[in-house]
């Protein structure tokens, strides 16, 4: 008997252990094991409420107390949103501690999602909070305390049902430009059908403090559930991509708005090359998957997930996309386990390299809207592991993500700072999930996968966190690219170290294209480190996480 025959026998045995509902290929790339440990980590939270909270359920992942450990702010719907301070020791089990935000309790209700960013350039992260009702800008004061800053920032939070957010720093702007995405206008005649609220673009005035007193309505709005400022054509001027829910709009579609500095935003139309795409748009994830310099976009929906790539035939100024989800095995259109063959419902989407093999993987939070009869009831979260041929293989089951919960927002971040990206999911009507990445090991004995880097950028003045920058990590002949962005996902955002799986590389060179377009010199670093790059500094710095809780 040859070794190949024995090997194939082993694989067959391994496959049968997984008992997938339908035959599927196994990942050749390593599959990390995850351990759900929300409760033991100190997180007892759920996102709940009536119809308005069928959508939303976001998570903001950011450092609220200056120790660089990622803290969590979870939207609660009719329940109180909760801020959890990260007490995890490096490489240990996850530990979180609920902490008081300093915000009045009733203002922490009706929250659908949140995105962290430093609005006022004071080095402390603030929060843009989405609500059913008045949205909030919470100014970070340090030590995980906040104060409402709507008045201070001349921000009118409105009264809409907000479900999406994105931010960017436009050229020479002192503060970020904010975009809020709104859902159904419940007060409009005929609601909810065809009564989508306009979205809002807020550009800061040039002033001593952030001043958002002159909003621009982005009309038409088509019930957006995710939005993202993205430099789709590498022009240096990000456009606003908006994913919309066809459930409620009439005559709507996916949208892309040109946001040229100093000019009103305007939607791309068919004459600009924009093609009509109509989906139950729930979440946007963006990454340059094929290394051509231009980002691809995963768009979650009910049924097929879309994966759009810029058409090679299109000219630079034309945003013509084609769907490659089927070709790459990334449709994730129905549950990968169980007997339910009805289409599934995708929400938060995020590209991250969860096994650190240099290939970006795709996580999708899944869950029935509430009791939609034509869609799967048991609809576990997806983990699509990218292979070396560029295709994706579903490994949510093997990874340990196949829980019977209704996922909504979420995020992937290295919560215990061991280089293995962990996953948090805010679930509707059920406990939040906190999946610790154990690599190839167990909860008792995690085993690392590939090498990794985590990169934090800093520049002085406005836009300290370098939103809009691009980070290139060169490993031999391979270059990994990440954009520093605020937005996308489903009502969930994060700011902090940008992770890179570096596979078997022990060394890497990092170059940064700062938001104004200037390129840095190459920074030489050793992998398996947290790296901080300050603009203009000759060398990168390393940061080490606390070893104790």
């Amino acid at each position: 008997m040859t070794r190949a025959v024995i090997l194939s026998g082993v694989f067959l045995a391994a496959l049968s252990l997984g008992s997938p509902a339908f035959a599927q290929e196994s990942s050749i790339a390593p599959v990390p094991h995850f351990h759900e440990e929300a409760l033991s980590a100190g997180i007892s939270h759920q996102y709940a409420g009536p119809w308005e909270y069928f959508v939303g359920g976001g998570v903001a992942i950011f450092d609220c107390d200056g120790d660089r450990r990622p803290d969590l702010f979870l939207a609660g719907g009719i329940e109180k949103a909760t801020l959890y301070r990260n007490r995890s020791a490096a490489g240990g089990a996850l530990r979180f501690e609920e902490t008081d935000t300093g915000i009045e309790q009733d203002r922490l209700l009706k929250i659908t999602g949140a995105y962290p960013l430093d609005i006022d350039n004071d080095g402390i992260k603030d929060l843009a909070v989405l609500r059913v009702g008045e949205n909030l800008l919470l100014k970070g004061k340090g030590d995980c305390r906040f104060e409402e800053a709507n008045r201070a920032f001349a921000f009118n939070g409105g009264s809409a049902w907000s479900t999406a957010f994105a931010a960017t720093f436009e050229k020479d702007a002192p503060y970020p430009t904010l975009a809020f995405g709104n859902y159904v206008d419940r007060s409009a005649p005929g609601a909810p059908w065809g009564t989508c609220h306009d979205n809002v673009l807020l550009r800061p005035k040039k002033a001593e403090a952030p001043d958002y007193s002159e909003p621009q309505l982005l009309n038409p709005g088509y019930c957006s559930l995710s939005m993202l400022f993205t430099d789709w054509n590498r022009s240096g001027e990000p456009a606003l991509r908006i994913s919309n829910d066809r459930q409620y709009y009439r005559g709507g579609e996916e949208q892309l708005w040109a946001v040229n500095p100093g000019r009103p935003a305007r939607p791309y139309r068919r004459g600009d090359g924009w093609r009509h795409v109509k989906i139950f748009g729930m979440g946007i994830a963006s990454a340059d998957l094929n290394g051509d310099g231009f980002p691809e976009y995963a768009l979650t929906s009910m049924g097929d997930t879309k994966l759009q790539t810029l058409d090679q035939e299109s000219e630079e100024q034309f945003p013509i996309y084609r769907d490659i989800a089927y070709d790459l095995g990334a449709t994730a259109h129905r549950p990968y386990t169980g007997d339910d063959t009805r289409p599934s419902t995708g929400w938060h989407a995020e590209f991250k390299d969860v096994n650190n093999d240099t290939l970006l993987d795709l996580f999708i939070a899944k869950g029935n809207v509430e009791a939609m009869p034509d869609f799967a009831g048991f609809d576990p979260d997806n983990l699509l592991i990218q292979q070396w041929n560029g295709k994706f293989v579903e490994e949510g089951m093997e990874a340990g993500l196949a829980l019977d919960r209704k996922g909504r927002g979420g995020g992937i971040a290295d919560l215990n700072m061991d280089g293995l990206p962990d996953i948090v999911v805010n679930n509707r009507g059920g406990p939040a999930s906190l999946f610790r990445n154990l690599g190839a090991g167990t909860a008792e004995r995690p085993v690392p996968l590939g090498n990794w880097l985590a990169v934090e950028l800093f520049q002085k003045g406005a836009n300290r966190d370098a939103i809009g920058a691009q980070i290139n990590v060169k490993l031999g002949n391979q270059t990994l690219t990440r954009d520093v962005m605020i937005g996308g996902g489903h009502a969930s955002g994060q700011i902090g170290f940008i992770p890179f799986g570096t596979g078997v590389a022990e060394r890497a060179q990092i170059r940064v294209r700062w938001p104004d377009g200037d390129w840095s010199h190459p920074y030489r670093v050793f992998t398996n480190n947290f790296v901080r790059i300050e603009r203009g500094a000759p060398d990168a710095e390393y940061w080490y996480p606390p070893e104790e809780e």
Partner: protein
Amino acid sequence: MKFPLAGALLALAIAALPADADDARPWQEQVLDGYHAFDPTAADTPKALATLIERGERLFKGKFVIEEGAGRPEATQAIIPTKRRRPAAESHQRLSGPDANSCQGCHFDPVLGAGAPFSSNAFVSEGFDAADFDTTDPQFSNERNSIALQGAGLVELLAREMTADLHRQRREALRTARRTRDPFRQALSSKGVSFGEITASPDGRIDLTKIEGIDSDLVIRPFSHKGVIVSLRQFAVNALNSHVGIEADERFGARWTGTADFDGDGREDEIGPGDISALVAFKATRPAPTRKTDLPEDWQQAAASGEALFSQIGCASCHIPALPLDSAVFEDPGPLDTAGTLRRAEVERPIRFDLAEFPWAKGLERDDRGRLLVPLFGDLKRHQISDTRNERLGNELIAQRFVDRDVFMTAELWGVGSTAPYGHRGDLTTLDEVILAHAGEATDARKAYTALQDADRQTIIAFLRSLEIAE
């Protein structure tokens, strides 16, 4: 290592294979006898250890053939799996490689495992952008004379202990800075060797601008002229690919490349972690160099004087006569390897053997704390060894793995009397030549040597020539 999904099952299945033994012929040319999974018990008994070392020796000496994967038609020599732009025209090539048939091909003089003369030099290049270089133009590669592996196990253990010391100092500095909320400056040193200093910030950042002679991750990489290889295991995986075109599964296998035949030669999983361990065991147990004991009296006297002068004029400040080793227990895999080389965390337990138990180690001195004194005449630290006034040892154009062109690891001088020629290119024919080539940080010592009377200089040569690799 295979897919972690079915890792355990797979390892069992592979380990249970008869390793193609049925196909073996007494006259077969192949070196490898099938795929060997990692076996933590491989050195649990003296007999098992002897068998492991014997297998390692056979692999070290064996001339790999095409049927078992020699050559890498679609892969470059790079340490990160890298495809060639076009298939190699020749299976072997003395410049970008594969440039050897066996490990022994470059490690044989004066005994198996030692170095080699100039004729066996290798050309090292990362192989990322210029994989197919076919010129000795130094803009494409650096020429390297091979280094003797005698005592390499002890050297790796010293480097591990020193790295652990430096990492402990970094940890303590961070703790102090976090506790006091003030920056904390910490000198870095281990076994009497200074590596400069770091400053820890209360927020957990480290200022590395004042480190000396070590990489920014404070890991001592003791092997190669540049000090860029962390372990004998990493060295084996790198060299097998680069020099003979045998690709180790633990770096080039499907787990990290998506294919079991990355180099496209039709052979899958060319060498498994069990065989890499055998090579490591063989290399780690090469007897440490010694001193000549049968010298005529005039040489003895000259050597004694020379040894004293060697210290007096400053040579011993880098070529430190001996460094103390707390434990001579060698573990494979070691604690510092990263993905692409089998790691400690990936095995249930490492292979373990005590170098102090080998007869050749019994003669090594111990200090008053019972620590083994490893007489390596080195400091496991990098130094600038060339400058604009004397570029003899900086005569290359490209930096290697982040190490500047004029910076090299202090050469360990044990056995130097047996390892002519000298210098990283092996193009210095005498000890006097290589001493005179010292510049940069070694300028004062070289000047002091130059200022000596000829007879005194000769005593230093006599001393160095007494440091031998026993034949």
